[in-house]
């Protein structure tokens, strides 16, 4: 099996497990819906133009739902010693990293795809635009890249569910900031050329986080 096949096997395993239990999708979807409702109520009364708060609300929701997903993804592996089995498999540790990363990326993206229409309805804005979808995807890549590394770290700590957001949020803040900036620009109807710098920051973070996480995952995977 070559590198790509091994990665895809791990991804397939995660997708298969999820399709059979449907635990993560259902819980994350309900959680995200609740967040949308709470945000809608807490802003509606005071903000004149909802479009001003939508970029922030969107990314806070994605970040919270994404953190839940990351926690779930590795907590699942901790049961019955699945993680040890995974690490014992005769393959490079980076395969595990990319496998889990892609799995997380897929799950978070699916959840986001389910949430976007709801957002569009609740906030009366068309959020399903190609440029916006690309931005969301880029932000999610950065989130999943560091998130996979840090969740592998967090499962080994004592208060693991609390530890992941504490570790992840400050590190991921630059990605969130640039993603919010681009999202706001798109919603304001600015041409993409005006946002090129923020997009560059977003892509730069994606690449750096991917490379750094890939290089350091070996040390985390030692257990």
């Amino acid at each position, binding site marked *: 099996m070559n590198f790509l096949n091994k990665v895809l096997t791990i991804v397939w395993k995660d997708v298969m497990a999820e399709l059979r239990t449907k635990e993560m999708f259902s819980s994350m979807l309900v959680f995200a819906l609740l967040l949308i409702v709470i945000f809608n109520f807490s802003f509606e009364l005071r903000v004149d133009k909802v479009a001003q708060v939508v970029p922030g609300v969107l990314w806070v929701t994605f970040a919270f739902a994404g953190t839940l997903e990351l926690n779930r993804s590795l907590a699942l592996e901790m049961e019955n010693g699945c993680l040890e089995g995974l690490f014992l498999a005769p393959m490079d540790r980076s395969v595990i990293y990319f496998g889990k990363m892609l799995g997380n990326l897929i799950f978070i993206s699916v959840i986001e795809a389910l949430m976007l229409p709801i957002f569009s309805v609740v906030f009366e804005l068309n959020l399903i635009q190609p440029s916006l979808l690309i931005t969301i995807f880029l932000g999610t890549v950065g989130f999943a890249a*560091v998130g996979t*590394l*840090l969740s592998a*770290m967090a499962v*080994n*700590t*004592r*208060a693991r569910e609390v*530890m992941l957001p*504490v*570790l992840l*949020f*400050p*590190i991921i*803040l*630059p990605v969130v*900031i*640039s993603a919010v*900036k681009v999202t706001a*620009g798109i919603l304001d109807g600015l041409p993409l050329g005006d946002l090129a*710098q*923020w997009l560059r*920051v977003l892509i*730069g*973070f994606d690449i*750096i*986080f991917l490379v*750094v*996480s890939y290089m*350091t995952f070996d*040390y*985390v995977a*030692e*257990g």
Partner: protein
Amino acid sequence: MNRRFRPEDLLNWLSGLTMVAALYLVFLYAPREATMGDVQRIFYFHVSSAWVGFFAFFITLVSGIAYLRTRRRRWDIVALSSVEIGLTFTAMAVITGSIWAKPTWNAWWPWQQEPRLILVTILLLIYLSYLMLRAFLEGEERKARFAAVYGIVAFASVPLTFMSIRLWQRLHPVVFEREAITWPRRCWPPFSSVSSPSLSSTSHCCFIAYGWGSWGTRPKD
């Protein structure tokens, strides 16, 4: 008590001496700033402690890499004490900055207007999480290993955060004169009215004093 003389003692003495020299330079040698008055003298403490803080986080990155390569506990101790030094000096920079901002900008913490404050907040939060991570891990070896990884990932976000803040200005014009608080050595626009060599040498003296002091007091393994 007859204690053996250690090289760190020399650093401590040197830092004590330079500290005195820095105080002299700050309060007597450097001229009074024309527009801001005496409150500007806080710059010397503010800027130098900010730089010691940044530098300490850089040391954490370097010793994290060194730990993962060599697996010697010594490097982990350097990384941890560097985080502690960095947090102390960054907090000092924040506090002195606030004290300066109140008379100048009329607000202790105007972070909508000044993205640099967000950068500093992120930095403090990241390295507080570093300490949290260590507190919640079991086993010395694992603690050192995870902390090294986190120190590396954390530093990856710092220079880019800095860059993103520069971009911020272009999209959102800010109320305050940005140049007034940046301090590249070549341009000192706010100080053009006063003689700049004395100002930069005063600031450097503070920087060196803090640097020696913090390096001299680092714990030994």
